[in-house]
């Protein structure tokens, strides 16, 4: 009887193929409204000193509790000093406020003297706090970095920080899906930073708006985890909500044994689930962008938007050749701000400062790449250069490998970990009119200090610029 009944109903259709993003999303929907608005569960919440005080204050005022202290982690990074000197008054108050908040709400905290302290997006993966398939948020737009582990990670504002603290969820509508495939093999001297600058150059700063980008293709798979983090980190500079990469053996190898990664039986169980995360064959993407790795040269930005990226062999562009009126105005304004003349060879642009660090390029592999160029050479006399490790553990590892000595002998300053001159909230900043070769992620007007001029590039390119005293082609140093 039961058998006949069963055979009367046709077998259920196979589930439709889904993307990595869709799988993570579906796994975290707590509640879905008819219009598609979801209450989305958040697995990990990273908290730092600058965007959290008002959120904790809101919680207190409403008499609300922190729902999941064990899913939350706090650290001070944005305005902490990179020297042993004292902090300015306002920064000190912000750090003390964070310390009071984490104590009151029992949030795990890497304190100022904790060797694990560092940039929030460096320590997440480093500690195994960032795992495949997770939803991760932080009151910082570069949270997309964590997508390199195959997590859905995005930045939120302070009101949403408060929302996550109180409910461990967010109210969200699903983003559209874009696939950016970089096939082939990267040429010598070309790094993850050049790849993402090339992608942003193609998409433009608003090209990714409303999308989550999945990076795929041989050149992406061939990147180390550090390189993948660099790529995902700058997704936001293309306007994308998040960037992610399917987890694979390299991901698992990187994570295994990290302090907060699952252990033993839990690791095996996690692994079996993580292996099912990659996008299914035939899954639908709303947009597709294809690049050939062999076409990507070492890149550098010339203007005040990350989309203003060009091959280092190129020249400063002429606004007369801008694609439309809006861009013509934007280029003209950029060039005036940057103090550049159309037609100047990029390799002839003199620089004053070099900054190697940030959540884009402050990891051990980045410091190794820069040290490789700096080894046995000297920073040009017109340049002041600094290296700021992304975390205390990166710093310790670099020192174990003797990278600090290479840098110091070459004339770089070797600093304490933190965000530093990426956003210049602490004492590290460039002076008006100074020009900086920087491994960070934003070249906006005033980003590294009022009137400061920023050129974004890879760590090896930054080191090469420091030695030559002008922007430089790293391939001349290899």
């Amino acid at each position, binding site marked *: 009887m039961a058998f006949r009944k069963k055979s009367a109903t046709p077998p259920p259709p196979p589930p439709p193929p889904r993307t990595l993003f869709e799988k993570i999303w579906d796994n975290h929907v*707590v*509640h879905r*409204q008819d*219009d598609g608005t979801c*209450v989305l*569960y958040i*697995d990990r919440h990273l908290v730092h000193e*600058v*965007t959290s*005080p*008002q959120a904790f204050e809101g919680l207190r005022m409403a008499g609300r509790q922190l*729902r999941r202290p*064990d899913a939350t982690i706090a650290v001070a990074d*944005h305005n902490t000093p990179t020297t042993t000197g004292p902090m300015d008054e*306002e*920064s000190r*108050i*912000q750090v003390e*406020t964070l310390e009071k908040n984490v104590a009151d709400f029992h949030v795990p905290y890497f304190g100022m003297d904790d060797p694990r302290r560092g940039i929030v997006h460096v320590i997440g993966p480093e500690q195994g706090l960032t*795992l495949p398939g997770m939803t991760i948020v932080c*009151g*910082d*737009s570069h*949270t997309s970095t964590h997508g390199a582990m195959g997590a859905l990670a995005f*930045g*939120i*504002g302070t*009101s949403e920080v*408060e*929302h996550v603290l*109180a*409910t*461990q*969820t967010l*109210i969200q509508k699903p983003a559209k899906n874009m696939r950016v495939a970089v096939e082939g093999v990267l040429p010598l001297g070309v790094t993850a930073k050049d790849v993402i600058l090339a992608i942003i150059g193609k998409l433009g*700063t*608003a090209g990714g*708006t409303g999308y989550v980008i999945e990076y795929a293709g041989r050149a992406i798979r061939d990147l180390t985890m550090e390189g993948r983090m660099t790529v995902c980190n700058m997704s936001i500079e293309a*306007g994308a*909500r998040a960037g992610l990469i399917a987890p694979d053996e390299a991901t698992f190898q990187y994570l295994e044994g990290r302090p907060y990664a*699952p252990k033993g039986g*839990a*690791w095996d*169980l*996690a692994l079996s*689930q993580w292996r099912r995360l990659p996008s299914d064959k035939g899954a639908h993407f709303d947009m597709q962008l294809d690049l050939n790795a062999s076409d990507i040269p070492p890149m550098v930005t010339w203007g005040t938007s990350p989309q203003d990226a060009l091959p280092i062999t190129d020249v400063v562009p002429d606004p007369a050749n801008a694609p439309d009126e*809006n*861009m013509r*105005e*934007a280029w003209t304004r950029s060039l005036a701000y940057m103090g550049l003349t159309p037609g100047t060879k990029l390799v002839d642009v003199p620089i004053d400062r070099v900054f190697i660090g940030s959540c884009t390029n402050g990891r051990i592999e980045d410091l190794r790449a820069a040290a490789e160029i700096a080894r046995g050479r000297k920073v040009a006399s017109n340049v002041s250069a600094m290296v700021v490790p992304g975390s205390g553990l990166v710093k310790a590892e670099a020192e174990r490998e003797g990278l600090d000595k290479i840098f110091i002998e070459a004339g770089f300053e070797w600093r304490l970990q933190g965000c530093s001159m990426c956003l*210049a*909230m602490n004492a590290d900043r460039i002076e*008006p009119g100074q020009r900086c070769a920087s491994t960070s992620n*934003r070249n*906006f*007007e*005033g*980003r590294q200090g*009022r*009137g400061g001029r920023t050129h974004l590039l890879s760590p090896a390119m930054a080191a090469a610029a420091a030695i030559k005293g002008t922007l430089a082609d790293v391939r001349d140093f290899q």
Partner: protein
Amino acid sequence: MEKFNTLRGVAAPMPMVNIDTDMIIPKNFLKTIKRTGLKDGLFYEMRWTADGQKKDFILDQPAYKDAKVIVAGPNFGCGSSREHAPWALLDFGIRCIISEGFADIFYNNCFKNGILPIKMPKEIIDKLMDDASRGSNAVLEIDLEKQEIKGPDGGTVHFEIDPFRKKCLLEGLDDIGLTLEKKSDIDDFEKKQRAAQPWLHAAE
């Protein structure tokens, strides 16, 4: 959060593309632990020279000093997640921004603070930019319920907005309160997740 029903006010034109959050509120104003008092930092580097002289920034011109609306170039609010950007705009008195497009996080942050960001196609922006250039006559009326903008010459245009976001603005709803009403759903989700992905939860 303050409700948003209708708004009548001067609209200031800011045709620049990619007005980023670092321009809207530079980092030195992020060291506050409060949400208020940020208007002094709004567009600081565009309003003041390095040696403390006032530049003739649009929002400081007599015609626009009480502006409640900004008509902006495309990709407004790109860059960081700092909610200090909408806080500073709100503190100055801006309750509505009209642009061809906004960066996602900034767009989201506006709604959490009772600011209405309106997306419009280029032709309409061009027209509104023109309206906004008429100094203190550049008065726009925005009716959220009807989803209409009325220009100084009486013509109206319709705008689109997500119905849920509209409702939250109209009623000044507290998101957190809304979500907490679903507490049992969250409890259920957590229970299931703890069983399926025990490593995401601290040992009991």
